[in-house]
């Protein structure tokens, strides 16, 4: 992360970086440009950023202040108006956190969330990569576009639709079950088995989003210099060797970047998907942090408690991102946040 003054940060870090990593970069300050001059120089850029900055401010940074209710027995009807309700509500310090950490249901939800994250990291995350490599090897442009369109498509379906589709196909009265019954076999419970629920939700996620996740990797594959393949082929590398020594190293920065982002999101595994199937497999299997917050905070209007759970999630996410970034740097990757 940048240790320089904000004035210099983000201008030309790349150029300022010392070419030789062995030699520590000299601490130097570039001559300060007066604010007015910079404004005159940069105003078109600032203007272009303004709408996005405004959006961030209004819909992200301002609401963030509302997190203060995590430390209150928040009563939206106290005080004279919506804003003074924040001031009028009783301050209870870490009372909400106390309740949160004392609630076994919270730990159950956290455990489920982490299990699903890890499971999906292993069984979902590599699939878009594999898919991208496979698709990249299809020569016919038409065929490739056709396949791409088809595998992207489910991303645009809502979860209600995806779950319904799975019920219609694999449910107890679905296509598979009815075919099995016609053949005289009692069909297994696929949609209602809490023990295999994690496989089911991962399968649903793969079906819905693997194609979408492939896009980034396809773009990264297109960036790999075809000469490298030719040269290694000339050097006698076979298909697998080329994959191992050319393709995968080419993809590595993107893979690491996405992995870090995914880790930051480790405590979010989705909401609707679990809400919809919760009754089918029970709370023990399907309660994740987001559904926990929904049932314990949104539907009960207990906003302070929900905000506490949300803050916890954000804090864990931040720690994970920073840690993963650190690890990425240690193994020589650029990571999410560039090192000076």
């Amino acid at each position, binding site marked *: 992360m940048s240790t320089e003054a904000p004035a210099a940060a983000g201008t030309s870090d790349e150029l300022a970086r010392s070419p030789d990593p062995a030699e520590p970069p000299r601490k130097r300050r570039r001559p300060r440009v007066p604010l007015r001059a910079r404004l005159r120089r940069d105003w078109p850029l600032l203007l272009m950023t303004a709408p996005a900055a405004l959006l961030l401010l209004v819909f992200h940074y301002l609401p963030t202040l509302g997190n203060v209710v995590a430390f209150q027995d928040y009563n939206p009807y106290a005080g004279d108006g919506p804003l003074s309700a924040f001031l009028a509500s009783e301050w209870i310090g870490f009372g909400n956190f106390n309740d949160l950490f004392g609630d076994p249901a919270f730990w159950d939800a956290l455990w489920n969330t982490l299990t699903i994250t890890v499971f999906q990291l292993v069984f979902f995350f590599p699939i878009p990569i594999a898919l991208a490599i496979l698709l990249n090897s299809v020569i016919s442009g038409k065929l490739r576009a056709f396949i791409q369109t088809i595998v992207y498509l489910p991303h645009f379906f809502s979860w209600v639709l995806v779950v319904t589709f799975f019920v219609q196909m694999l449910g107890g009265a679905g296509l598979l079950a009815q075919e099995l019954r016609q053949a005289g076999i009692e069909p297994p419970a696929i949609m209602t088995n809490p023990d295999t629920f994690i496989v089911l939700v991962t399968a649903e996620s793969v079906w819905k989003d693997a194609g979408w996740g492939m896009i980034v990797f396809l773009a990264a594959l297109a960036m790999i210099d075809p000469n490298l393949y030719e040269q290694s082929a000339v050097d006698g590398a076979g298909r697998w060797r080329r994959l191992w020594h050319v393709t995968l190293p080419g993809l590595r920065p993107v893979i690491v970047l996405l992995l870090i982002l995914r880790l930051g999101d480790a405590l979010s595994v989705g909401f609707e998907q679990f809400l919809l199937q919760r009754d089918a497999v029970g709370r023990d299997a399907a309660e994740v942090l987001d559904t926990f917050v929904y*049932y314990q905070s949104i539907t*009960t209007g207990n906003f302070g408690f929900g905000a506490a759970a949300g803050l916890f999630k954000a804090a864990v996410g931040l720690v994970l991102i920073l840690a993963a970034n650190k690890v990425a740097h240690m193994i020589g990757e650029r990571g999410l946040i560039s090192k000076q």
Partner: protein
Amino acid sequence: MTPPLAGAATNRRKFLGLTGLSAAAVAGGGLLSACGEGGGSKGAADDTSKVSGVLPAQGKLPDGIPQPDIMSTRPIPDGYNKYPSNLVDLIADKPGSSGKEITAMTPAWGPAPPGLGQNAYLAAINDELGVPINFSIQDGLTYADKLNAMLGARDVPELLCVPQWEVEKLPRFADAVKVLFEDLTDHLSGDKVNAYPMLSSFPTGAWQNALWNQRLMAVPNPTDGPFPWALFYRKDLLDAKGLTYPKSIDELLSIGKQVTDTKAGVWAFSDIFAMIQMFHKSPASETGWRLKADGTPEHKYETPEFKAALEVMARIYKEGLVHPDLAASKGGDMKKLMESGRIMFMQDGIGGWQGMQAQQQKVTPGFNLQPVPIFSATGGDPLVWGDDKPISYTFIKKGASKERIEELLKVINWCSAPFGSKEWHTREYGVEGKHHTMTPDGPVKTDLGFKEIANQYFFISGRSPVVQPWPETPKYVPDLLTYSNAMVKFMETNPWDGIKLEFPATYKSQTVPYEDKITDIVRGRRPLTEFDGLINEWKSAGGGNEARDFLAKARSDAGK
């Protein structure tokens, strides 16, 4: 489990689709106050019978309204077999005078009707009112979420409809009412209500429920059916198999097994747990309480009746008698399965009956939907769940001038005209030739009528409840009233009648977690033997004992 819908209007068939979702979300208030430092309330009980002075005087129905054909036992409304040929014009003056647009929020189920400017029905009624109402129509399934956010932000429309079953879910609702809405006592109490004659015809019991903090805070929408659930069956299909409806649990199970034909894709039931509880006479007053012989309150979880019902329902699931689609996802559409004959029985509100019958008899000749008369699993008289709480309440946003409040009340008055009046007819059926056509047996809605009319103005107020006739389903009124009047004799009496209860926070917030665990037992994911331990835990950690003390105190405070 509290049924989300106390009384469904007969023509609001979309209502009951929501039961699956909202029954799961019945919870409110704070959190584990057992941990000491957290937020949350200890509950509040408001004895509404002490404050009879503020209630409006009970008026009569206006002159010229025809006599009903079928008289009922209250709270079942009377019924009409024939649509009156002469409609009375009750309100001569247009209620609106200011011309200033009224904002309103009401629920709708299914596709949202077109908004102001694209909706001939709204234009016609607004013209009658003399002042335009601009509706914000919200999905009835997620209405509580919207309300929670809206009330929390203190950003409400001028007229806000809050359904009764959402009130139970809204935390600190009494606080919200005090801060956000106008006190209507000075406009409506005693003889003052006579300025609004349609409102004076509402039953006093409905008004009693509209009291908050001992003041009249809302206009109620009186219920036209007290029963939350009925068990419907496809009479045409059972007849074809030579079967009749079940009269005992054994018959229910054996018929269930006989009609389930998995190879043909036919199962017997939807999730009928509430009905199974009712057959076993498990209590349901105020989220499932009754009084023991010694006068102490007892929750259904603690009764042998509930446990027996639990066993039966677990067996029904275990034997595979519930349609797998309904077992697999909240998205499963029970009504579609019922309509296509892929289930034979479903647990639903009465509100869906007429609509499904009218629609499906066009598709499936001979389609006949009937409710199973409620029986007792253990012999003797059955127990029927029900109460006469209003369907919804209409609140007026705080800060309106006296003139504006009077104008709004006049609008509400117009929307509350009873069956048999021109105003009711226009409100319900829109413009003749456009939204309905007249037949000798009464009005029939056109496609445009179905599209544009979604009870927008119905949820502005209500009406003195009756069961109206439908030309498409001539047998519906006698069928419904025969069933209802037979069942009302066995309706559970609520020991906390007249007391408005806001349960302690722990009890409310622990409702869903324990319901989930009981669902686990029902679905066979947890053994039945865990039930007793679960209930012991519920009594302490789940707030059961706290709620019991709270309920006992509420009764003794009210002098009962």
